[in-house]
């Protein structure tokens, strides 16, 4: 081996500047072409340039011609490729590891991009197939009701007959302006609307409501009449565009009739007050029965919302009935007591007070408009579904944010999120759980179905949102029915007690004496499933539930109306300050409002 002097060695990092610029043009071009094609780092290029230049210089120095050197060099392009490969192989392990990591990442990104593209293509190509007309399904039972049995046309007449009582620019004693009297919520309104009230009593005698849901004529009629009652001067001519029906999803169904029906309930209660003042026993009886029937007829549409409105109307009439039987039982005839009992029986029993099947029908409608259909009950979410979901979120007031990220995630949600079949199974499961839970006696129920657990896993516009957005408050509806049914049972008992008194001259010593002659069974306390608490006090009695604290406070009333809030909400923790009171059904006491704070 030839020795070399260390002093003469030049390190790699200090590559000598042997430039190709000193070479003849043909050779210089070769070096430049090779260097350009290698796409190496500058330091690597400098090394290669120096070596190739030195090579050609050696060739020239040894007497070789330029042409010979060019010929011997070979293909510069092939050389560049091979040099690049070899030089890259020489790079550090760290660099190679970094390159591998980068390639893996880029590869993964590329794979993801291609996969996402395929998923997005599949998503945007998906279209729903609408096979059911849920509106028609809802209205099918209505079509077979004879006109002569329909109360709705008479309720419409009643609405058009309602007039404002006239106090539109009144002031109070201090000269402050008073709001116009509501025709539905004042005795003056009842007094001014005897014609409408007569129609309400007539309608109540009919067996069916007979209202076709989403009827555009009804929509316009109701809104025009409400505009009239709101003193809108243009009510007769104003444009009231009915919402479109054809092809619209079931979630867009509006139930405008609930507004006047609920108002009619209030109007009848005002008329009871008017009749009590006038000692008109017949009117008292007719109004109370008409109001109870109205609550029952309202439930004709199978939606949960109509059930809840019906329950609210029922609560109103129960309060009034308890009030009348407390203060003016003489205005209630024996026959009226029987009528009240019969009407109250019609308003129950509890498990039927809230229904969930229409909610499932509406959900099915959403699914058929949002998912593809594989003819086997399954499918994936489509862009139409995302649009519907956005609309539903606006409808429900949640207004889910539809940003770029959300839209980009939709194809992924469509592919990897729950399928049509699994979503339906989830919804059906919740409905069934709620039905079972509703069917159990409230005092022996286990933990309620927990749709909130489902909501917790929802992302904006994910298919789960269909459930979280469209899932009605099943549990709260059941609680409302529980409360109403307890109140209904208590009122039936109060009627039976009055019937007992009329027959025996005094109230019984215990509720059990009412069964079976006056009452088919004892009313049970929502608190514990035991009979409602009954205490004979002198010539009268107290009938009460233990209330939400589930302690017997001897029928103690809360001191104010606000203190009574929560007493009958058995399903929620009660405020300790309200724990010493009971839920009293009789005697009726109008609790005072809270004193204004100084």
């Amino acid at each position, binding site marked *: 081996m030839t020795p*070399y002097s260390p002093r003469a060695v*030049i390190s790699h990092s200090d590559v000598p500047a042997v430039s190709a610029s000193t070479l003849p043009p043909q050779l210089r071009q070769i070096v430049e072409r090779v260097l350009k094609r290698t796409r190496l780092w500058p330091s690597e290029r400098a090394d290669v340039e120096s070596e190739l230049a*030195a090579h050609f210089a050696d060739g020239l120095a040894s007497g070789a011609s330029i042409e010979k050197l060019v010929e011997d060099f070979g293909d510069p392009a092939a050389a560049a490729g091979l040099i690049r490969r070899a030089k890259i192989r*020489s790079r550090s392990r760290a660099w190679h590891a970094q390159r591998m990591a980068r390639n893996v990442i880029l590869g993964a990104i590329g794979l993801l991009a291609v996969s996402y593209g395929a998923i997005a293509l599949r998503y945007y190509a998906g279209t729903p197939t609408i096979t059911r007309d849920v509106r028609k399904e809802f209205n099918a039972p209505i079509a077979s009701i004879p006109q002569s049995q329909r109360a709705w046309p008479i309720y419409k007449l009643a609405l058009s007959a309602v007039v404002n009582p006239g106090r539109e620019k009144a002031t109070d004693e201090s000269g402050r302006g008073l709001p116009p009297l509501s025709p539905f919520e004042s005795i003056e309104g009842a007094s001014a609307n005897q014609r409408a009230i007569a129609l309400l009593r007539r309608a109540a005698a009919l067996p069916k409501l007979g209202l076709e849901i989403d009827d555009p004529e009804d929509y316009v009629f109701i809104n025009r009449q409400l505009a009239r009652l709101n003193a809108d001067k243009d009510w007769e001519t104003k444009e009231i565009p009915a919402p479109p029906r054809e092809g619209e999803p079931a979630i867009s169904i509006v139930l405008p009739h609930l507004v006047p029906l609920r108002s009619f309930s209030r109007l009848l209660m005002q008329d009871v007050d008017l009749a009590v003042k006038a000692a008109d026993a017949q009117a008292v009886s007719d109004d109370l029965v008409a109001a109870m029937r109205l609550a029952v007829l309202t439930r004709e549409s199978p939606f949960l919302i109509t059930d809840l409105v019906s329950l609210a109307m029922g609560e109103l009439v129960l309060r009034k009935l308890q009030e009348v039987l407390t203060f003016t039982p003489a205005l209630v005839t024996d026959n009226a007591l029987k009528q009240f009992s019969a009407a109250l029986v019609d308003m129950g029993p509890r498990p039927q007070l809230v229904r969930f099947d229409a909610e499932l029908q509406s959900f099915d409608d959403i699914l058929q408009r949002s998912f593809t259909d594989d003819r086997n009950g399954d499918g994936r979410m489509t862009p139409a579904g995302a649009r519907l979901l956005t609309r539903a979120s606006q409808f429900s007031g949640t207004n889910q944010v539809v940003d770029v990220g959300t839209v980009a995630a939709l194809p992924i949600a469509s592919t990897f999120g729950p399928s049509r079949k699994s979503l339906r199974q989830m919804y059906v499961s919740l409905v069934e759980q709620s039905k079972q839970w509703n069917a159990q006696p409230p005092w022996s129920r286990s933990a309620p179905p927990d749709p909130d657990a489902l909501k917790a896993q929802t992302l904006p516009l994910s298919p789960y949102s269909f459930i979280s957005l469209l899932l009605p408050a099943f549990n709260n509806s059941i609680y409302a029915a529980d409360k109403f049914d307890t109140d209904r049972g208590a009122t039936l008992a109060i009627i039976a007690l009055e019937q007992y008194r009329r027959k025996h001259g005094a109230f019984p010593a215990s509720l059990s004496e009412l069964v079976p002659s006056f009452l088919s069974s004892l009313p049970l306390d929502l608190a514990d499933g035991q009979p409602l608490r009954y205490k004979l006090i002198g010539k009268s009695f107290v009938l009460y539930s233990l209330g939400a604290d589930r302690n017997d406070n001897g029928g103690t009333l809360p001191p104010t109306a606000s203190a009574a809030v929560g007493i009958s909400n058995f399903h929620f923790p009660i405020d300790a300050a309200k724990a010493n009171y009971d839920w009293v059904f009789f005697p009726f006491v109008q609790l005072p409002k809270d004193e204004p704070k100084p």
Partner: protein
Amino acid sequence: MKIERELMRGAGPVAVLKLLNRREMYGYELVETLAERTDGALAMGQSTLYPMLYNLEAQGFVEGYWKEAGTKGADGSRDRKYYRLTDKGKTRLAEDSKQWEAVIRAMKALGVASLAIPRVSLVSVSSALRIGANP
């Protein structure tokens, strides 16, 4: 006669390692020596030699270093990149030499050496490079 590319791919690096086993050399010198010592059979252009050298360098069989040339060119002193065999390269050369001997024996036994490569047989290549012989 130049040998086929595929054969060159196997023979070229061994030939370069063998030359460098004797002494360090720079690129042009390697090209010239290979052509001369193999009767042109293993003559290779820069486009083949330098990538090969860089590969051998990347694999750690040779190492290159710059030093001033002993002769002065017309433009003054000139630097050259010399290559020398590493210990790893020596080991590799020993292994490759054994393999080549086995190949040559096998070719001889088959009578391929005298038929397929009449002028510059693998035997002559081996002989020219003195594979297996002490430097």
